[in-house]
């Protein structure tokens, strides 16, 4: 009996719509291998366990669902006050004129589209490599699709402590833009980089970022996914951490009809630290999914996940987080927190926290909650003269604080706090 399976057809239809780069150069082998991986697993469908809470249809369809690009003149672009090397992408296409010259002491910055033509490149050892490792034990077909079909991206090699952050500015203009960006970041031993990302990028974005941090390297990542309402995004971060290295990533998501942010972290050296955090604010037609997989395969590493979502008017939040502690990964310290604040009865939060532990000397904890505003605290604030709206906002910000505090740099943290406050203020009307 022939089993009717929608996967091959849908996958081929999506692949047919891809525009392959003209000169893939050294990426060709990685792209071909990714294509083979993708065909073997097929694009995700609703029935896949890993996509139980998030409909992948619009992320996998051959056609882009149109999304209006909104201009937001009521506030300055985020991180504008932070001195950084800015690289601008408009609808997924690098805009050299709008960008700074890619010069930063101790850091090499190149565009994938330009660099892939050369014969040899350091990124050859990274492009598609961490993505391929991240396909097990759970398939991540959209990431394979990305490796196979990426049109551009940034290749950053950090060999010293970068004097200022690199800021990737994503501008969405076209209603039907369909961007596939693939970034590779290699942080050498003892080197340090802060990467900022901002903006909605495109009507549909598929983005992969592979980050390899050598012994003692530090990488800080702060991202704000923009204010567009209709855009869709599937993003993956694949990080591999060496001994005594540090990885910290924070994401602010306010708006966006569909967002799936996956983060796959692997500890390969002892005594390393990885923190992943996110604050999501959803109003109405908003679906936000944080999917995290952290593998402890080294001794005495610390991982920390802090995800907070504020949902109202029927918005949906999803959290799938797993800590896998392999045999021998003793002294692991794993913490996972996912919480939702439901501002009304229409919103929902779906959480699947998981721990899988094969070592016997570890400390792992997880907590997942959803609840409404604390009425007692609300009355307390109001009894001191704080109006209902402002009191609700204050408590909402307090709820988000633990995630926001994961941002180390005070100026970046303050900016995120200001954006959260502005979002709440706008909705108070």
């Amino acid at each position, binding site marked *: 009996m022939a089993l009717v399976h929608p996967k091959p057809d849908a996958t081929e239809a999506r692949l047919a719509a891809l525009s392959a780069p003209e000169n893939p150069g050294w990426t060709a082998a990685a792209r071909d291998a990714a294509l083979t991986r993708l065909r073997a697993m097929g694009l995700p469908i609703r029935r896949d366990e890993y996509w139980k809470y998030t409909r992948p249809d619009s992320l996998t369809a051959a056609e882009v669902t149109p999304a209006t690009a909104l201009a937001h003149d009521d506030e300055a672009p985020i991180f504008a006050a932070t001195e950084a090397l800015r690289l601008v992408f408009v609808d997924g296409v690098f805009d050299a004129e709008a960008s700074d010259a890619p010069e930063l002491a101790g850091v090499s910055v190149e565009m994938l589209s330009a660099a892939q033509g050369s014969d040899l490149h350091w990124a050859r050892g990274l492009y598609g490599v961490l993505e391929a490792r991240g396909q097990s034990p759970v398939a991540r077909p959209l990431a394979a699709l990305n490796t196979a079909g990426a049109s551009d991206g940034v290749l950053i090699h950090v060999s010293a402590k970068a004097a200022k952050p690199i800021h990737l500015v994503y501008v969405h203009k076209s209603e039907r833009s369909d961007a596939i960006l693939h970034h590779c970041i290699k942080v050498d031993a003892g080197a340090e980089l802060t990467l900022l990302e901002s903006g909605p990028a495109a009507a549909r974005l598929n983005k992969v970022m592979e980050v390899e941090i050598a012994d003692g390297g530090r990488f800080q990542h702060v991202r704000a996914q923009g204010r567009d309402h209709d855009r869709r995004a599937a993003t993956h971060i694949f990080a591999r951490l060496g001994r005594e290295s540090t990885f910290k990533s924070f994401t602010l998501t306010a708006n966006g009809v569909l967002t799936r942010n996956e983060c796959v972290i692997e500890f390969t050296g002892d005594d390393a630290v990885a923190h992943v955090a996110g604050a999501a604010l959803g109003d109405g037609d908003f679906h936000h999914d944080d999917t995290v997989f952290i593998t402890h395969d080294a001794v005495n590493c610390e991982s920390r996940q802090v995800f907070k979502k504020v949902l109202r008017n029927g918005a949906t939040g999803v959290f799938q987080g797993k800590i896998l502690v392999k045999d021998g990964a003793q002294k692991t310290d794993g913490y996972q927190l996912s919480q939702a604040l439901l501002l009304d009865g229409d919103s929902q939060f779906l959480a699947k926290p998981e721990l899988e532990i094969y070592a016997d000397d570890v400390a792992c904890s997880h907590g997942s909650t959803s609840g409404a505003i604390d009425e007692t605290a609300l009355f307390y604030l109001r*009894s001191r003269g704080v109006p209902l709206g402002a009191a609700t906002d204050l408590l909402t910000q*307090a709820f988000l604080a633990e995630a926001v505090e994961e941002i180390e740099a005070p100026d970046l943290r303050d900016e995120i706090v200001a954006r959260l406050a502005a979002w709440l203020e706008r909705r108070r009307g």
Partner: protein
Amino acid sequence: MDTPLARQEKVGKMLEIKNLHVKLEEEDKAILKGVNLSIQAGEVHAIMGPNGSGKSTTSYVLAGREGYVVTEGSATLDGVDLLDLDPEERAAAGLFLAFQYPVEIPGVGNMTFLRTAVNAQRKARGEEELSAADFLKLVREKAKALQIDADMLKRPVNVGFSGGEKKRNEILQMAMLEPKMCILDETDSGLDVDAMKLVAEGVNALRSEGRAFLVITHYQRLLDHIKPDVVHIMSAGRIVKSGGPELALEVETNGYAEFLEEA
């Protein structure tokens, strides 16, 4: 100079509760059954009474807490109908309730909380908001008198505070907000003698001609430190007896039994 009588005429009644009947929203249970209370500006009144007599309910209903239904009667502050206002409007009108159990608010710094409250009230009254520098100066000065250190101001509201610290923090809020009508709901509960003295000093420092206090307590000992003008005994949702400070001493010696019988 006004004579005391003339002043009273002018300021009139600060808090006026008339025949207040209140029941719980969730169940058909009457808690207050006709409370009458009249407090003039500059006065300190105390309400004493056994557990469950309706003392705390009176304070909550005046402050506007949800969960209660007023079935009859009225409560006015300076002639303004309190029962018609939201809790924040009551605060802006000059009412302050020092909570029996001050609420912990993780994630909100005590300083942020105080500044938000002070400026919200100023705004509601059409006054200019305090600048960060002016606010800081003011809060440091008031905090010092209550022996509240910089660390307590920085920490989240009441989180990790001891019982005494929480109550001192209530008085600090009162000092910062400068309300006309202060209600202290069992402010002495959970306090040792030294902490009670400190809190009482904070309250006494705020006593003035234009400000009135309603002190709710089980015990007479707080009234040794905050001297009341009038003492009321509450029982089964009514005020059953009012008198001078000697009434509190009587309760201390004989308990509430005789008043309950009278009721």
